[in-house]
């Protein structure tokens, strides 16, 4: 009885978790995701740029990212694609 209860608890929890996952907001329903919404055009879906001349933003170090943006702003790093956006 105890075993079957435990099993049914696991199964039910899993089913409910799936339901809850579906009911939850998706991965893009956050302020950060919305701010970076247009970036994926060049930097790829979810920041995984498949090309070889565009930086991959997925998993990028935050400090490095901030420095790159600052460098574009100050003209230390040049890119016609990035300069108007910073």
């Amino acid at each position: 009885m105890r075993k079957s209860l435990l099993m049914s608890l696991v199964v039910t929890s899993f089913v409910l978790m799936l339901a809850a996952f579906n009911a939850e907001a998706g991965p893009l329903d956050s302020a950060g995701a919305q701010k970076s919404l247009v970036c994926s055009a060049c930097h790829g879906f979810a920041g995984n740029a498949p090309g070889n001349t565009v930086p991959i933003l997925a998993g990028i170090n935050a400090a490095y990212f901030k420095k790159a943006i600052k460098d574009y702003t100050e003209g230390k790093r040049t890119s016609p694609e990035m300069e108007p956006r910073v």
Partner: protein
Amino acid sequence: MKTLTRRTFLKVSGLGAALLGVGRLPSFAAEARRRVVVIGGGWGGATAAKYVRLTDPSIEVTLLEPSKQFISCPFSNLVLAGVESLKNLTMNYNGLRKHGVKIRHEAAAAIEPDKKRVRIGKDSLEYDRLVVSPGIDFQWEQVEGLAQAKDTVLHAWKAGPQTVQLAKQLQSLPDGGVVVMTVPPVAYRCPPGPYERASMIAWYLQAKKPKSKLIVLDANKDIVSKTGLFKAVFKDYANLDYRPSQKVEKIDVGAKEVTTEPGDKVKYDVINLIPPQRAGAIAVDADLVGGDKRWCEVDHVTYESVKQKNIHVIGDATIGLPVPKSGNVANAMGKICATAVVSLLNGKEPPVIAPGNTCYSWVNDKEAIAVVNAYKIENGKVVQIEQKLTPGKSVAVAQNSLAWRASIWNDVLG
């Protein structure tokens, strides 16, 4: 092992629910039937369908797109010059299915805003919010003789069979033959597109048919986009005869001749007539277009039509935003509109997000130029902050364009 009785299940599921804190379960049940229908699986529509699902997977999304293939208009000018193949620009919609988008390869016959449904043949599809991304259609009647000859006079302005046909006509042109292409009056799909095409055809003729020439009859007073850059590029091509303020009024297929508004008659061996344009027919039929009967005005934050509630219009069919009719802008509109639609369906304030644009134009077999536009939203309207052009043509910009296309195709369809 004891079998699970109904009573045990209810006890256990209650515990499971408590453990997960599933107070939201009733709302899931209530919201499960919310439906978004997207008309048109181009750069805007495909993106919108995918991003609604990503933003809120509880929303049912149906995409209506007659074609089983997505063929990229960007880069199709390279096919004309034999630098690219149409096969490399052709993709499918399987990636969207992985996000749970239901795809029906059928055309929407009509929109019934009062009943909130879309007619598809004898069938109909109900929606809570509708996204219309119909692209453009041609105003054949604007050029005398074109409506009768439209199957033989190629526009190649929707990438596909006509792109291949025009490439073949150029290949068959005898050395010394004359190619005429026309640029429609603004607004039209892809402002720099005709000038990229002129560059690529001129490059092809220079390389393969050195006695031939290209005459460009532009309805506009000057080059519409990347003006300085294209003027510099055109100097590379002695075989390119660019004539501004030459709106085509008439075509005589028998005489192989076009007549322009000033009355000039121009003979051709190969003609590429890009007709004047308006929003896709479904948007016109549903009265989503404004007083000009051509384009659709929308809210700059939500892309909801100013004429019809619960209907959003994105992509080339829109007007009033200071943005070009480009694939990149349609992709941005698709994402922004998706977040707005999800917010509105969830009773939330839509986020305020400005679009962006990066647009590359190839000018020969190895080099390209680009323009980048940055925007912000001010008092509920999109305004341009800055526009930057590349200093000139370069191999590096062409390489960046290849990285861009890999990224954005994946963003639209992956």
